[in-house]
Every structure is written in C-alpha cells, then in structure tokens.
C-alpha cells in the first residue's frame, strides 16, 4: 500500500487531531484519526474526500498553520512545527491581498526570502510568466477573473521555490472549463518544477487526472480509506478505459460507504449516515 520509507519527502505518522466542539462544553470532535502517509520527493498525491473528512485540516497541519495535533509530521526528516517558506500553499479562495497588484501579491511572498531586490524582481517576473499572466502584472485582484486570480495565487505559492506545494481545493470555485485548463497548467508546472505536490480535492476526476496516487479519506473521524496508484502515462485521457475503471472503483468506495458506527462520538449529533450526499451527486449538482 505505502511506498518504501524515505528520508526525503513527507512522512505523516499516526496523526490525530481534535477540535473543541462549539455546542458541547465537554466534548471534543475527532477530525483526524491516526493518519499515516508517506509521500516521496517530487510525487503528486491527490487527497480525495467529501467535505468534513478532514482533508483540508491535514493539509493545514502539513503546512504548519496548525501545530496542535498528536503524532508526527516530518518534511525531509525535519519535524513540522511552524510554517516554512519550503512549503508553499494555495487556498481555495485565492486570498490575494486586494490592495496589491498581481505582481505585488507575488512579491509579498518574498518579503522574508534571502534574495536581493533585483533577484526578487526577477523571481516575480519569472513566475508571472510561469502561470501565463504577462500583461496582468499591474492588475488588482478585483480586476482579475477567478481563474486568473488563482493563477496568481499559484505563482505566489511557488515563488519561494518551495520543495512542497500544498493545494487546498484550488480549483473548487472555478467553472468547469477554467478548471480543466488550470489542471493542465498545474501538471505542466509540476513536471517543470519537479516539486512535491499535495492536492486536496473532492473531484474524483481531478484527483485521478493529476495524482501519482489518490488517497481516499473517509469522514467522521477523518481517516485514510484507501490509497490507489494511478499508473497511467501523462497527459492522461479521461475517457481511457483504465481511467474510467479506476474512477468507478474509487466512486464505489464512496457509494457503499457504511456508517462507521464504531467511530461515531455518541450524542455528538454528527452521525455519519446514508443521507450524506454521495460524491456522484455532488458532481451532478455543479
């Protein structure tokens, strides 16, 4: 199931995370339950799951935005305790600063980078080109389309030349056409930059299309359900028979997902149940 142990790359070991619950003074909510995952340097891993399965939480832990968890996360052998310029992150909402232009937003990521002004300027120009936004350097976020804003966000995530890029449903808010185009761009960037990428998504197609492996997570509490290797040559063809078979297997995982009664916190009012919309239904809903 898992890859061979590596000193390089990301090691996630027995990670559990609890949130204090709002409605109950006594209880805490287990959002991640004993997650273990190894990711090799340069690998593209898709983390797939319905909303509420803790996949974004896992990403935030790897990013270092939240250090309150049990277990251990190591990146290149070093324990994650805080954020790092070695780990770039792209959020679903682009989170560009509205008072800065596109290039200034990218430059803002370099504020603490050990580069000269000239080097920073060059790095910004280079990454503007990387995401194909020449001509829009001086545009403010409100002047950009959703897809363009997300490109700026990707450039901002990459400009520090991180070893890992974490993507939290980066294309979730985009229309289908833009999403497809940006998926191809992301793949091109990944092949070009040769860095590790973790993509959190609830889109099965996207997960298979981009990932070397697809990690499927089950909700309540969030845990790894299955890890599928995608041994298809890139660029992948969504109508390829093997692609379709893999998708069906993964979707079947979600469809006949039994209620995990043993994991349910009693009285939490958050029973995992059959009424949960299936991933297929969601995709139709878009």
């Amino acid at each position: 199931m898992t890859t061979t142990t590596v000193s390089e790359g990301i090691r996630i070991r027995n990670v559990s995370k609890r949130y204090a619950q709002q409605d109950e003074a006594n209880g805490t909510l287990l959002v991640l339950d004993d997650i273990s995952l190894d990711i090799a340097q340069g690998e593209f891993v898709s983390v797939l799951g319905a909303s509420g399965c803790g996949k974004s939480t896992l990403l935030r832990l790897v990013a270092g935005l939240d250090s309150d968890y049990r277990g251990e996360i190591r990146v290149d052998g070093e324990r994650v305790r805080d954020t790092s310029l070695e780990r770039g992150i792209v959020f679903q909402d682009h989170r560009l600063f509205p008072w800065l232009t596109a290039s200034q937003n990218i430059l803002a990521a370099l504020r603490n980078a050990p580069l000269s002004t000239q080097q920073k300027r060059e790095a910004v120009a280079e990454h503007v080109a990387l995401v194909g936004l020449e001509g829009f350097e001086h545009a403010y976020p409100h002047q950009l389309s959703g897809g363009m804003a997300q490109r700026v966000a990707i450039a901002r995530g990459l400009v520090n030349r991180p070893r890992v890029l974490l993507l939290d449903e980066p294309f979730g808010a985009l229309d289908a056409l833009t999403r497809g185009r940006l998926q191809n761009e992301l793949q091109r960037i990944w092949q070009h930059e040769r860095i590790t990428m973790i993509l959190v998504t609830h889109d099965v197609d996207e997960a298979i299309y981009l990932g070397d492996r697809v990690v499927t997570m089950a909700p309540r509490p969030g845990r790894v359900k299955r890890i599928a290797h995608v041994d298809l040559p890139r660029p992948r063809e969504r109508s390829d028979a093997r692609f379709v078979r893999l998708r069906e297997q993964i979707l079947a995982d979600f469809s006949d997902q039994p209620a995990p009664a043993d994991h349910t916190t009693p009285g939490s009012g958050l029973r995992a149940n059959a009424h949960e919309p299936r991933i297929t239904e969601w995709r139709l809903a878009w």
Partner: protein
Amino acid sequence: MPSTRPLPRLFSPRKASGPPPCSCDAPVKPERQSALKQRLSAFNWRGLVLPLAAFALWWLVSALHLVKSGLLVSPADVARTAWQQIQSGALLRALSASLAREASGFVIGTAGGLLLGAALGFSRVATRLIGPTFDTFKQISLFAWIPLISVWFGLGDMAKVVFLSLAALLPVAAHTCDGIHAVSPRYVEVARAFRYSRLQMARFVILPAALPSIFTGIYLALIYSWLATLGAEYLLVAGSGIGNTLIDGSEQFRMDLVLFGIIVVGATGWALNALARGVERRVLARRTGVSRERAAA
C-alpha cells in the same frame, strides 16, 4: 517552456518593482476632462428641485409682503448682508478663526484617535485595560463634557480645541480599532505562511486591510469636528468665529445675518465633505475598482 513565452505587453522592466504602479504613465489631462464630464452627466440635477422651489417660495413670500414680520427677511437683504460681510472682512475673520480651530482640533483628535485605536486593535493588554473605559466614554454625549472643559480650560480657544479634539478622537479610535479587529484571519494565515513577523503583519497586512475603515473614521472626524466647532462657539462664547456671527445675528434680531451664517456653515460642511470624499476616493480607488480602464486594457 515558460521562458520562451512572448515578452510581456504592459510590463516595462523599469517600473517592475516601483512601489505603487499608479496610472501615472497615462496622459493625465484628457482623462481628467472626461472624468469631469462624466461627473457632470452623472450629477443628480433633480436634487436641486427642492432647494430651488423653497428659494422661489421664500422669494415670492417676501416680495409680495405676504408675511408682515421683521423676522422674515428677503433674499435681497441676505444678499446685501453677505456682500457687506464679505467686503468688510468680517466673514474672512470669522471663518478663518473657525476653520483654524476645526483644523487643529481635527489633527490633534485624529492623531490621538489613530494611536488609541491602534493600541486597542493590536494589544490585548490595551483592550483589557482601556477598552471598557473607552466603550463607556463613547456613550457620553460630547456636549456633556462642556461644563468640565470650560472649568478646566476656560472659554477661549484652548477649551474649544480640546472639545474638537475629543469630537474627532472618538470616531477615529473606534473605527481604527474595529477595522483592525475585522481583518480577515484568512489574510493573516497567508502572511503566516510567508513567515511574516508581528511587525510585518501589522505594517503590510493589518493596516492596509483596515485602511477603508480607518478612512471612514477620519472622514467622520472631519464632519464631527466641524459640527462640534459650531457647538463649541455656541457654548463656549468667547472670541470670534462663524458660530459667533450666528449668535450676534440672533441677539440683534438680524435674521439676514443668521441666514447668511447658516449658508456659510452649510457650504463649509459641504466643502469639507467633498474634500474628504475626494481624498478617500483617490487613496482607495485602486482596490475598489474605480479605475476600471486598466482591466479593460
């Protein structure tokens, strides 16, 4: 493959990292003219109907001598008084005295408000220490301080400036503090991902994000301090000022002088309002989408 892309179109390397790439490269004059034209065509002419009708009615009533009272003066009387006030320099003296007070009170109050608001917004200790007092303080009507101020500072300019500073301080402090608290944690998270220090966070994330709210506070301070100028001149009666012109008029039953004073006060308020709006628009235009030409280009 990215390096072989065609050269940027709008991108000129010279200005690549110049701090705010404003639209200074565009020809300024024609843009201004068209903006003025746009403003004129967008102006709500119908808004003039009511004042013009009121003026016509007033003129009609006084011209036909429908009301026999010394308290109803004709527009011509007011115009004559206005001319006399302007010519004798009385208007200039009164207005400059008032505006000088307004300006010093506004500057002192705004500076204090920014400091206080920033302290309340950034520091948890300050919030716990000063917060409750400040919140209570806000609830006290400004005019309730007048007796205290007059005891401490007399009736002269000093007392008035203190009163005006107070009037300006409250909205600036409140809006600065609120603006800082309202900054989205999503931006803070981005800054954390880039390892911003606390100081960098405050300088490059919190303050720019809070700027619109801070501007609202300063804008209100300008308006409030002008309103308070009149109040101060009424209640701390000493020296000259446009408020004293009004008082003189009412004491001498000179309604022409009173009406003239009211017009001056209104016009000054309107001018201050327009000034504040103009500055605000200029500073915040870039992010709110007023300058849309660039996106189209």
